[in-house]
C-alpha cells in the first residue's frame, strides 16, 4: 500500500521524542564527572555509589516484598473471580465492579484507601501497600484470565465430569491447566504494575517504609543527582528485558496454540 512520505516526519519525531530523554539518562549514568549535565568521561562510579545507597536498597527490598505478596494474592483472587464471573454470573454490575480498579484513576483509589485505613484506624506499613496493590492487580489478572477462558474448551470439562471426576478434580486437572498461560501473564502484569506503582503507594505507605518509587520521588524532588541516572538505567534495563521476554513468550504460545 502507498505510504505517504510526509507521514514519516511525525512518525520519526514520535520515536525521537520517546527515546531521546531515555538515551540521555543512560549516557549520563556512565559519566565520570559530578555534574548531571555535562559528560566528562566514561566511568561506573555512579553504579558503585548506588550499590552503597542504603535508602535505595531498603526501597528495593520493600518494593519486591510488596510486589511478591500482592501478586500472589491478586493472582489467586483474580483467577477465581474470572472463573466466577464467566461461569457463575450474568450480572453486568459484577462485571463492572471487576474491572473498576483497572479503570479508576490511581489518585481516586489512593485517596479512598487512605480514608479507609484512617477511618478503621489501621496502622500504615508495607501491609497497607500490599493490600492496596492487590486491588488493581486482581482486576488485571481477572481481565487477562477471562480472555483466556473464552478460548477454553468447555467440552473437556464436561467430559471430565461425565467420566466421574468431581468438581474440584475437574477444576484442578482440566480448567486450571488450560488457564495457566493466562494466569502466568496476569501474574507478570500484576507484578510489573506493582513494582512501578507510585501514587497509591505514596498515600498508603508508612513514611518509615518507603517503596522504591517513593524513594526515587523524594530524590528527584530534592534535586538532580547522577545516582538517579544509574538507577534509572538499571530500571530501564530490567523493564526492557521483561517486556521483550514477555513479547517472545506470547509469540511462542501463540504459535503453539
Amino acid at each position, binding site marked *: 500500500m502507498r505510504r505517504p512520505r510526509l507521514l514519516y516526519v511525525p512518525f520519526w519525531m514520535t520515536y525521537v521524542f*520517546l527515546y531521546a530523554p531515555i538515551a540521555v539518562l543512560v549516557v549520563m549514568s556512565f559519566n565520570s564527572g559530578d555534574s548531571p549535565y555535562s559528560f566528562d568521561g566514561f566511568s561506573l562510579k555512579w553504579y558503585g555509589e548506588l550499590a552503597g545507597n542504603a535508602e535505595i536498597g531498603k526501597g528495593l527490598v520493600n518494593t519486591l516484598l510488596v510486589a511478591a505478596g500482592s501478586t500472589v494474592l491478586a493472582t489467586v483472587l483474580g483467577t477465581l473471580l474470572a472463573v466466577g464471573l464467566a461461569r457463575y454470573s450474568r450480572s453486568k454490575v459484577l462485571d463492572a465492579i471487576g474491572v473498576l480498579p483497572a479503570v479508576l484513576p490511581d489518585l481516586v483509589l489512593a485517596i479512598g484507601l487512605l480514608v479507609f485505613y484512617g477511618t478503621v484506624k489501621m496502622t500504615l506499613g508495607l501491609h497497607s501497600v500490599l493490600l492496596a496493590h492487590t486491588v488493581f492487580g486482581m482486576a488485571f489478572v481477572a481481565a487477562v484470565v477471562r480472555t483466556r477462558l473464552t478460548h477454553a474448551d468447555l467440552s473437556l470439562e464436561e467430559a471430565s465430569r461425565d467420566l466421574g471426576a468431581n468438581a474440584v478434580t475437574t477444576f484442578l486437572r482440566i480448567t486450571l491447566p488450560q488457564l495457566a498461560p493466562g494466569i502466568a501473564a496476569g501474574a507478570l502484569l500484576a507484578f510489573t504494575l506493582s513494582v512501578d506503582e507510585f501514587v497509591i503507594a505514596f498515600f498508603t505507605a508508612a513514611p518509615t517504609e518507603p517503596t522504591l518509587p517513593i524513594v526515587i520521588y523524594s530524590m528527584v524532588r530534592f534535586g538532580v543527582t547522577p545516582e538517579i541516572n544509574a538507577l534509572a538505567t538499571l530500571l530501564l534495563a530490567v523493564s526492557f528485558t521483561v517486556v521483550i521476554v514477555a513479547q517472545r513468550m506470547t509469540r511462542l504460545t501463540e504459535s503453539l496454540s
Partner: protein
Amino acid sequence: MTGSTVSGATAVPRSRRSRALGRRSRAIGRLVFLGPGLAYLIVLLLVPLALILSYTVFRRDRFGGVVYEATGENFTRLLDPLYLDVIVSSLKLATIATVIALLVGYPTAYLIAQLPRKWKTIALVAIVLPFWTNFLVRVYAWIVLLSGPGLVNSALGDLGLGPFEFLYNQGTIVTGLVYSYLPLMVLPLYAAIEKLDPQLREASANLGARPARTFVSVTLPLTLPGVVTGCLFVFVPSFGNFVIPELLGGGRSIMVGNLIRDQFLKARDWPFGSTLTLALLAVLIVLLLLQAWSARRA
C-alpha cells in the same frame, strides 16, 4: 451434559434430586469463585469509595479531625475562584496534552498500520516499551534535559543562545503529560486504523476524491471510536495527575491532583479533599458517559 448422552453408558434421566444437586453445586461454585474476590473488592474498593462520598458532607475541625455534622459548605467552597481556577486549568492542560498527543499519535499510528508485518511488531513494541519503564524515571529525564544548567540549555549555549527557563511552566507540564501518555493514544488508534478495509480508501480514490478528502470523509469517521478511546486514555491520567505538575511545574498547586494531595497530606482537610476527589471523578464519569453514548451512535 452432552457427553453422557453421546456415550450412552451413563445417560440417566435427570431426576429432581440431580437438578437440586446441580442448583446446589452452582450455589457452591458461586460462593467459592465469586465470594473471595467480591468480598475483597467490597471492603477495599466500594467501601473506600463510599467513604469519599460520605466525607464530602462533613467538615474539618480545627485540629484536622472531622466534624460529623451534615453541611454543604465543601461544595460552595468548590466554586471559590481559588479552587475553580485550578479545576479549569487542569481541564485546559489535560485537553491541550490530549490534542497534541492525538496530532502526533494519529500519523504515527497510521504509518505503523501500513508497515510490513515484521516492522509493524517492532514499531509497536518500541511505542509501548517506554510506557513499561518507571513513570518517575521518565519524568526525571525531562528535568535533566530542560533544567537551568540542563542539556538543552548547554547545547543552545554553544550556539550563543539562552539560557532559557524551560522548566516550571505550563508548557513543561503539557510536554511531560504528552510524553508519559502518548503510547496510550497510539495503541487504540493503531487498532482502529488497522481494522480499516484498504479497499474503502481505494474506492474513494477511484471515485476521484483527493487524499485529503478521502481522509476526512472515509478514514477519519471510520476510525473515530479509536480516536475517542485514545483521547480518554490520555485525558483521564492527565487530568488527575499530581506528579508531573509537581516535578515539572514547580510544585505550586496548578492541577486538581496537587490540590487533592495537599488537602490530605498538608491541610489535613479530609472532607474538602474528598469533595475535590468527587469533582475529579464526576468530570471523568461525564466523559465516559459521552464516550458510551458516541459508541452507541456509531
